[in-house]
Structure formats: structure tokens, C-alpha cells
């Protein structure tokens, strides 16, 4: 099909740029850029003895960020985000493959299973997990009743618990790009691979995974980055044992009331994100599939 060039259709009827893209630009400037600049400025501000923000330049906030205590939390953040991403790939890949390869009604049903949890607030769902896993929760009650264990198992407040919650919240962001990538995969390539003597497992590693790596890639970015900031998951399921950068930021703004330090931490998180996205782009990743 030939596409008509819109250029001709609108000739002599063009609106001034100010009217068309102006409002959107204003919106973006006011709601995205201005706050970001404010955060940047704030990160270089000082505080008085009552932790009120004083607009006096200092780089002290940044120098605090390299203390060993903070370093440990960065490491923990990266570890949890990494584990979450790996688990999301391992669980999400087969599931996406199944959705992409089933047909019609069943496919819609499976797709809905991924989407439906979005309809409930994630905070509430994470509280649900705490109720489920708690010492007097459903799982422990069941295990006790079946006499598999003699006293409640401590499921909560462990790294694994936080990873579980993160995976639970973020796996749709892995499944959707993976599904798109696998859907695009030409079935005849798989037949050709088998025809040429490859066993299914070889076809998986030689053909399927390399050709869907863009999906794995964008899925990983979309899981890893939000994971660093989902402080509520770590708050509720980690109980302070699994603090992440997100928790630090939250604490500076709320309980510690040290806004400049919180702002500096935010800037660090933004930088980490930018570096990751840039690396993704460098490696040939498609920005569109990130929805950016």
C-alpha cells in the first residue's frame, strides 16, 4: 500500500509551531524539567541545625554519599535489582513464549492474566504478600496444619522476600517486551533449524534467544531501573533489612527531613538510570521498545 504524503494534504493549512507543539513543550518544561532542575539545585544546598534548607552552595551532600554505610546499600540495591531481573527473565521468558505461541482465545486469556494485577494498587498487593507470608499468615498456617513444620517459618524480612515482591510487581514489564519480540519471531526459522539437524535445545540457544535478545534487553532495563526505586516493596517485605537507594531517598525526605541529601541521592539514581539507558542504546537497543 502506498502512503499518501501528509505534506500535501496540509499545505497552506499549517498552524504556527507555537500553537501545535507549544502547549506540550510548556507542559514538559513545567512538569518535568523545572522539578528536575529544582532537585539538582537542592542537592547542592545546605541545611541549618534544624534541617531547614538553606540556599548556600555546598558539595557536602555528595561527599556524604560515598560513606561505607551508603556503599553497602548501593551494593544491596544493585544485588536485589540484579536478582530481580534474572528471576524475571527466567520466569518471564517461558511464559512470554507460551503466550506468543498460543492462539486466539487462550492467548487473550493468558495476556489478561498478566494485565489484571495492574488493576489493583501495587501497595495493596504487596501488603497481601505480607499477610500471606507472615508468621501467622496463610502459608505458615497451612504448613503447620499439614504438620510439615512445627513452628512458623520466617519468610519475611529477607533479601529473598524483597526479590519476590519486586519480581511480582515488575514481571509484567519483562513479559510485555519479551512477548513482542517472540511474537515477531518467524516460525519458519525454527523449522529450518530443526530441519538442519538442531535439537530443540540447540534451536533455543542458536536461534530463539539471539533473535529475541532485544526483548530480553529492554525487559531487563524496564525491570532493573524501577527496581532500584521501589522503596515500598523493600519497606513492607524487607522490613529494613533490605534497604535500597529508594529507601534512602524516601527516608531523607520524610523521617530524616534532610532534603538536600535526598536530592543528591536522587541525582545519583537518575545518573545510574541514564548510564544504563545509554548503555542499552549503545548496545543497539531500540528506544521505542522501552516506551521512552
Amino acid at each position, binding site marked *: 500500500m502506498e502512503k499518501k504524503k501528509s505534506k500535501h494534504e496540509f499545505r497552506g493549512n499549517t498552524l504556527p509551531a507555537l500553537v501545535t507543539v507549544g502547549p506540550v513543550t510548556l507542559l514538559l518544561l513545567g512538569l518535568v524539567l523545572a522539578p528536575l532542575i529544582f532537585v539538582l539545585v537542592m542537592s547542592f544546598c545546605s541545611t541549618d541545625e534544624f534541617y531547614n534548607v538553606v540556599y548556600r552552595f555546598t558539595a557536602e551532600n555528595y561527599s556524604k554519599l560515598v560513606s561505607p554505610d551508603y556503599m553497602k546499600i548501593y551494593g544491596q540495591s544493585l544485588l536485589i535489582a540484579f536478582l530481580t531481573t534474572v528471576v524475571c527473565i527466567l520466569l518471564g521468558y517461558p511464559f512470554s513464549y507460551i503466550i506468543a505461541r498460543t492462539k486466539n482465545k487462550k492467548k487473550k486469556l493468558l495476556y489478561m492474566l498478566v494485565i489484571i494485577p495492574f488493576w489493583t494498587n501495587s501497595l495493596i498487593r504487596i501488603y497481601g504478600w505480607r499477610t500471606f507470608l507472615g508468621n501467622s499468615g496463610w502459608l505458615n498456617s497451612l504448613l503447620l496444619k499439614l504438620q510439615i513444620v512445627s513452628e512458623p517459618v520466617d519468610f519475611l524480612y529477607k533479601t529473598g522476600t524483597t526479590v519476590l515482591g519486586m519480581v511480582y510487581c515488575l514481571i509484567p514489564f519483562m513479559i510485555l517486551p519479551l512477548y513482542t519480540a517472540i511474537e515477531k519471531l518467524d516460525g*519458519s526459522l525454527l523449522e529450518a533449524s*530443526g530441519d*538442519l539437524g538442531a535439537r530443540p535445545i540447540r534451536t533455543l540457544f542458536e536461534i530463539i534467544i539471539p533473535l529475541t535478545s532485544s526483548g530480553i534487553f529492554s525487559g531487563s532495563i524496564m525491570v532493573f531501573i524501577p527496581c532500584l526505586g521501589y522503596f515500598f516493596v523493600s519497606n513492607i517485605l524487607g522490613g529494613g533489612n533490605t534497604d535500597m537507594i529508594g529507601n534512602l531517598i524516601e527516608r531523607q525526605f520524610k523521617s530524616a527531613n534532610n532534603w538536600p541529601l535526598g536530592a543528591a541521592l536522587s541525582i545519583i539514581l537518575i545518573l545510574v538510570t541514564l548510564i544504563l539507558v545509554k548503555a542499552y542504546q549503545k548496545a543497539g537497543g531500540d528506544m521505542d521498545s522501552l516506551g521512552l
Partner: protein
Amino acid sequence: MGKIVEIEGVNKIYGSNHVVRNLDITVDEGEFLTLLGSSGCGKTTTLRMIAGFEEPTTGTIKVEGEPIEEKEPFERNVNTVFQSYALFPHKTIFDNIAYGLKMKKVPKTEIKERVLEMMEMVQLSGFEHRYPSQLSGGQKQRVAIARALINRPRVLLLDEPLGALDLKLRKQMQLELKRLQKKLNITFIYVTHDQEEALTMSDRIAVMHDGVIDQLATPTDIYEHPATRFVATFIGETNIYDGCVTSISDGVATVTLENGAVKVGCDDSFSILEYATVSVRPEKMRFSKTPIEGFELVAVVKDYIYVGSVLKCIVSLPNGNELKIERLAGQELPKIGSKIYPYWNPEDAVLIHNDSYKIFKALDEIRLA
């Protein structure tokens, strides 16, 4: 020559769709067999069943004497050239061609040697490090063929491999494929809807129609002695008319058509008062300015169409039907609007059993009972 592929009583049913019906084909070693038919006739399904991508609903397919369902696709001596080429886009041409050998764990030095040799054979030397997206359609086609042939299969299955190429390239590739097939002495089973391609390349052609093989014979036989009305019309151009056999003597039947009686050579399988179809190729048609004995057709010259080497003469019969008559360009021709008497050498025409005859006969029997 031994049998290499044996298809026995194969049916394929998808839901309520009977795609392949009671198929029986035996393919000889080293043969070039074409499955020819229009889209939806079941030819690709048949090929996919031989490749092992689909399972027959009933019946068996044996390759080298062994039923294929006992082996997975990757264990068979059969390779496929796909319609869309199905080249691996993330691998270089070298790696694409080497894929089969790599899967068989052939030593690296041998892989390199064989791949380069194969690339030379399909005239792709120097393209090792390119990717499929950097090749033209014809080059991709060669890679697809090389990738399959390097495994030295006993049988190569080709699913409309030249469908995406332009006419000139297609003709060139037809000859190249035929040359490769003779050189390597591999059995080719080739699927196409292009009757000219089938006639050019095949040792034998199976003409498929609605999931059934209408005729399985050599190209000459298919063209000169079509077994069914469908085969006659599908392969080449023809003048085709239904009529009733009114008399038979010395292997020549007189068939009465709507426009009068004609003479057609026939065999013993025809009987008097049978409904039958007459097929005469345009190049076998003749005409005269005076009536010819045994032929009662009278026609009026309607138009001439010049197609280079020959001139097509369109004449119309009293009932409005048209006949095509081919003449070498340059011959003297009657004027448009003049009256002529079409005829032919009875041996040059073909008499075909009319399927509807059986229905009429059955109806007659019911009526008589």
C-alpha cells in the same frame, strides 16, 4: 533406481478441512518430482508432511524405507528449502551455510572447507561475512539452497523456492537448480504453482487438485495426454469442449459437441454414448476454407493476437464459444470476419473421461430402476 520416498494412503484433515486425500506417491532415487497445483490444493501440506513438520492424519510416509514418524526432523536425511528462504538473520552467510554441519559436530576445518566449496558451487564466493539482509533475492535463494545441500541430504524438498524472484532470474535459477540436481544426484521434490516451471524442470509432475493427484506423469505425457479436464486446462493453453461419444472405429471416436461432430483419437476405455471432454492444444489446431470430412465445426475469424513468435487466431463458433488457433507469424491468414472450418489430426486431440458422466450415468441407473 530404488524408491526413496513412499507415500501411502496419506490423508490430512485440519478440523473440517480435508486438505490431502488418499495420497499415494512413490519417488525414485535421483528423481526430480514436482507437485504442481494452484494454491490450496494441498501441495505444500504434502511437502511439509514429508519434511516432518506436519503429521499425516492417516497413512504413512517412508523415507529410505523407514516411516518418518519414527524419527525427529533433525534425524532425517531430508532437508528443506523454504519459500521465504528462512535464513537466520543474525548469522553471516558462512554461518548460515555451516549451520547443519555445526549441528552434526563436524570438525571446524572440514566445515570451512565444505562451506567454501559449496559457496563456490552456488556462485557466492566472497560473501562469507555478509548478512542475509545485505543480499539480493536471488543471492538469498542460493544461500538457502546451499544451506540445505551442504548436509548432503538424500532428498531435498523445495517449497516454491523461486516464487519471490523476477521472471528473468527465475528462469536462470530454474536451469541452475536442474544442473545442481543432476550434478549431485539428489532426489528433488519441488512444489510450485507455475506450470511452465514444472514442465521445464521435472522428470515427473504430480498435478494436484483439491487434495487429490489428478495425474502423475512425465511433462510430455501431462501436456500431450492430460488425464483430467483440470490437468488439460491447468497445464498450457487448450481448447476444451464437452460432448458425447457417438461412434468409435479404429481408435478414433466421433464426438458430438454442441457445435457439431468432431473426430478424436481415443483408447479402449471409452464407450459409445459416454460423456467426454475434447482437448486440443492451439498449436495443433488447423483450419481450412472448405469443409473437412468428419468435422462439422464452422467458425468466424474474430481477432488476431500477435505474441512474437506466433500469431494467435481467435475464432468464434455459432454458440458463441471461442477457439484459439496458433499460427506461425508470417503465414497467410484469412481476413477477420471470414468463415473457416476448424479441424485437427484426430491423434493430436485428447479425449478425456468427463467426471460428470459418472453422475449422469448414476442418475440414469436410478431412473431405470
